[in-house]
C-alpha cells in the first residue's frame, strides 16, 4: 500500500506550525512529543503505521475551528480521529499531518424522549449514548462490534452498521443533524431534531464521508424505545449453501428478524475453542434473533422453525432464558478475539445480494485453496454483509501480500455479483485502490467533485477513499 510522498515544505515549517497552533489553543490541547505521538501512529488497521507531525485534542467546537483555520492557512493536512478503531485505516496519519482527535468532546447536550432524540458531542462512545438513555427505556440502534470503544464521530464518518441493521438501519438512518467545521474553519449546522432536509441533503453526504468533507463535533441522534423482548435461536446445517438458502427463505417469507448471523465451520471451531459457548459441530450455523411482544416472538419463531425444518437442520436451539440468550451470542461476539488467538488475520466486509450467498461462499472456499490461506466466515447474513477473515502469518515473508491479493480477489467477486467493497467498515486506505473495481472514472469524478466543494485544497484526511492515481491532480494543487 502506497502513501503519498511526505511534503518537505510542511515538515520544514513544523516549528512555525506548532507555534501557530499553540497560540490559539488552551493548555494541553497540542501534543508534540515523540513518545505521545506514537500512540496515534495507527488505528484498528495496525498493519500500517506512521506517527503524525502533531496531535490536537480540542475541548470545544471553537477550538476545532481554530485548529482547522491554522492548518488551512498554512496548507497542513489534517487527519480527523474518533476513537481510532477503524478497521480500514480511516484515521491513519501521514508524517506531515496534524491529527484532530475528538476524544475530549464527550458531553451529552440534551436528551429529549418526547421527541425521541439525543444531542451529543461526537467524542462520546457509541455504547455510552445508549447508556445515557437506557434508564428512560430508550436505546441508540447502530451497534458496531467495537461499540464499547468507538466514537460517534467515527460512526458518522464511516456510516457504521452492526448486527441489528436489518431492522434498524445503519448510522445514516439514525442521524438527524450534525454540527461540523469545514477545513477553512467555517462552523455550520445541518439538520437538527426534526426530519429531512429543507434543501439539498448535505448531511446525507457528510455521513460516510470518512472525514473527507468536514469534522463533525456534535450530532442529533434518533433514539428508539427498547423492544418488549428479544429471543435468539441457533440453527446448524450441514453445508454453507443450505444455510444460505435458508436465510433467503426466511426473508422471502415475510419474517423480519433483527439479526441473522452466519458462521461457517472454521469460525465455529475457533469460537467454540475460545468461548466454549456450546455450539454444535456442524458446517454452518445461523444465529437468528427476533424481537417484539411475546406473541410476536412466538409467531416469528414458529415460522422460522417451520422454514428451517425444510432445510434438514442438524441442530436447532431456541433460547429459553436470558442466560441462554447470552450463551448463544457469546461465541459470535467473541469471534474476532477467537480468530486473533489463531494468528494474524485480515477482516473484509464486502456486501453481496443475499441471493448470491451460496455462490460466493463456495468461491471463497475455492480461492482459499488457490491462495493457500485459510479463511473463516462470520457475518451479517440478513443484509449480505460478509466478513471473511483471512488467516496469515505476518512473520512469514510474502504472507501479508498473498493475503492482500486474496482479499482483493474476494472483494472483486463481491462487486461482480452485484455487491460492494465495504458494507460498514469504510474504504480508508485499505480498499482505496480497489475503488475503481466498483466505480468507473465518471463515478469517482462525481464523488471527488463533492470533496472539491467542501475541501477545495484537499487537506482533510489525505490519501484515503479515492485511488491515489485518481486524486493525484487534485492533491498536487
Amino acid at each position, binding site marked *: 500500500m502506497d502513501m503519498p510522498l511526505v511534503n518537505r515544505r510542511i515538515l520544514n515549517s513544523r516549528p512555525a506550525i506548532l507555534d501557530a497552533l499553540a497560540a490559539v489553543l488552551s493548555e494541553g490541547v497540542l501534543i508534540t512529543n515523540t513518545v505521545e505521538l506514537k500512540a496515534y501512529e495507527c488505528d484498528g488497521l495496525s498493519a500500517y503505521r506512521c506517527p503524525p507531525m502533531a496531535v490536537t485534542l480540542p475541548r470545544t467546537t471553537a477550538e476545532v475551528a481554530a485548529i482547522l483555520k491554522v492548518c488551512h492557512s498554512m496548507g497542513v493536512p489534517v487527519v480527523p480521529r474518533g476513537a481510532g478503531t477503524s478497521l480500514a485505516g480511516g484515521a491513519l496519519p501521514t508524517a506531515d499531518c496534524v491529527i484532530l482527535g475528538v476524544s475530549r468532546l464527550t458531553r451529552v447536550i440534551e436528551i429529549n424522549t418526547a421527541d425521541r432524540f439525543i444531542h451529543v458531542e461526537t467524542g462520546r462512545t457509541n455504547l455510552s449514548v445508549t447508556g445515557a438513555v437506557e434508564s428512560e427505556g430508550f436505546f441508540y440502534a447502530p451497534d458496531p462490534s467495537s461499540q464499547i470503544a468507538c466514537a460517534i464521530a467515527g460512526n458518522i464518518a464511516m456510516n457504521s452498521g452492526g448486527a441489528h441493521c436489518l431492522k434498524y438501519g445503519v448510522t445514516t438512518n439514525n442521524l438527524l443533524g450534525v454540527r461540523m467545521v469545514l477545513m477553512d474553519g467555517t462552523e455550520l449546522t445541518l439538520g437538527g431534531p426534526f426530519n429531512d432536509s429543507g*434543501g439539498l441533503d448535505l448531511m446525507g*453526504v457528510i455521513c*460516510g464521508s470518512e472525514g473527507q468533507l468536514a469534522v463533525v463535533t456534535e450530532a442529533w441522534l434518533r433514539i428508539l424505545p427498547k423492544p418488549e423482548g428479544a429471543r435468539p435461536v441457533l440453527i446448524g446445517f450441514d453445508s454453507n449453501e443450505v444455510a444460505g438458502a435458508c436465510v433467503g427463505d426466511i426473508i*422471502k417469507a415475510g419474517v423480519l428478524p433483527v439479526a441473522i448471523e452466519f458462521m461457517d465451520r472454521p469460525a465455529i471451531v475457533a469460537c467454540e475453542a475460545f468461548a466454549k459457548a456450546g455450539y454444535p459441530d456442524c458446517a454452518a450455523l445461523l444465529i437468528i434473533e427476533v424481537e417484539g411482544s411475546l406473541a410476536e416472538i412466538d409467531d416469528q419463531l414458529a415460522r422460522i422453525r417451520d422454514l428451517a425444518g425444510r432445510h434438514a437442520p442438524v441442530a436447532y436451539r431456541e433460547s429459553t432464558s436470558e442466560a441462554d440468550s447470552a450463551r448463544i451470542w457469546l461465541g459470535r461476539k467473541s469471534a474476532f478475539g477467537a480468530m486473533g488467538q489463531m494468528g494474524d488475520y485480515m477482516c473484509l466486509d464486502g456486501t453481496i445480494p443475499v441471493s448470491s450467498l451460496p455462490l460466493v461462499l463456495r468461491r471463497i472456499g475455492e480461492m482459499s485453496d488457490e491462495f493457500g490461506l485459510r479463511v473463516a466466515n462470520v457475518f451479517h447474513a440478513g443484509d449480505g454483509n460478509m466478513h471473511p477473515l483471512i488467516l496469515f502469518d505476518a512473520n512469514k515473508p510474502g504472507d501479508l501480500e498473498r493475503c492482500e491479493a486474496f482479499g482483493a480477489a474476494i472483494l472483486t467477486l463481491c462487486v461482480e455479483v452485484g455487491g460492494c467493497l465495504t458494507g460498514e467498515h469504510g474504504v480508508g486506505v485499505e480498499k482505496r485502490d480497489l475503488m475503481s473495481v466498483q466505480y468507473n472514472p465518471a463515478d469517482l469524478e462525481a464523488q471527488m*467533485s463533492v470533496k472539491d466543494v467542501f475541501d477545495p485544497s484537499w487537506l482533510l484526511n489525505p490519501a484515503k477513499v479515492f485511488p491515489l492515481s485518481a486524486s493525484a491532480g487534485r492533491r498536487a494543487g
Partner: protein
Amino acid sequence: MIRSATGPLALRGGGTRGPRVDGEILDLSGLSGISLYEPGALTVVAGAGTPLSEIEQTLAAQGQRLPFEPPDIQALLGRQGASTIGGVAAANASGPRRVQARAARDSLIGLKCVDGRGVAIKSGGRVMKNVTGLDLVKLMSGAHGTLGVLTEVAFKLLPQPETSAGLCLHGLTNTQAVSAMSAALGSPYEISGAAHLPAEKQTYVRIEGFARSVAYRLDRLKSLLAMHAAEITVADQPVERWKAIRDVAPLAGQGGDLWRLSVQPSTAPTLLAGMPDDAKVLLDWGGGLIWALIPEGCNLRARLGPISGHATLMRSASSLPVFSPEPAPIAALSAALRAKFDPKAIFNRGIMG
C-alpha cells in the same frame, strides 16, 4: 438532449408532486420498467420513469412493499398524472410510516443519473449495507432533480404486515394530541403512524404486524393512552383512514397556499397557535409534520419566525421561495455543488437555492 441543451429543462416524471418549473419538458416516462426484483433479497431496481402503481402492484403480489408509504398528493396539489418511482426518489416523498420505517431516502440504496454535462453517474448499488465512497444517493434524493436526472433507482423493501389496526383518541387539543402521540411513539409497541386532525379533534395511532401481536399491543396501547384521552375507540376502516391521512385528503380541493412544515414534534402546538385563525391543518409524524392551508400570500415563514425545522411552500400563487432560505455557508455549499453537477444551470432552475 442534456449535452446539447442550452436553455432550462423541466424534468418530469408523472408531474404529480414536484414544484412546477419553467423550461423545455424532459419527460422521463420512457425510462420505465422493473429491471430486477429479488423478493429474497428485499430489493427492487427500476427505471426512474416506472409508474409507482406498477411497482406497488408487483411488490404486493409477493407480499412486500416500499417501507416509507409514499403519498399520492395529486388531489391535494390539484394535479393529474401517474406518479413515478423516480419522482418519489427525487422528492424524498415519505408518508405516515416515516415515524417507523424512516424516509424514502433511507430505503433508496442506489441510483443512476445523468449530470448537467450529460455524463452518466452511478452511486450506491443494490445491497442494503454499502459505505463504499461518498453517498451521492442521499445527496440526489430530495434534490428535486437539480443535481442530475435520475434514470434508475434501487430500493430496499419490507414484507407487508399481516394486519393493520389502530386507535382513535377523541376530543384532544393540539397540545394534548402531540403529547399523546409522543407517548405512543415512545412505547415499545412499534407504532407505524401517529396523526392528528385538529378540525375533527381526532388523533389516530396505527399498529401493524402479526395479528396476535397487534391485538395484544392495541390493548396495551389503550391502557397507556388512557391518561391522555377520556374517549378512545378502535379506529374503523384503518386502511382507508390512513390512506386519507397519507394523501392529506382532508385538505384537498380547497383554495389557499399549501405549506408543509417538518418540525421538532413538541414545538408543533406553538407553531399551530401562531398560524392565521382560518388555517386548515393536519398533523402527521406525531406532530413532526404539519400540513397547513393558509390564506394566499401570507408569508408563514416570516409570521412564525425561526423554527426548529423547515417549511416548504408546496402550492402557491405567490413568489415566495419554495424551500426555506438557508444560512449563508450552507447556501454557498449547495450552490457550489449545483455548479459542479449542473454547470450550465439547466435542471429545474429556480426551485432550490
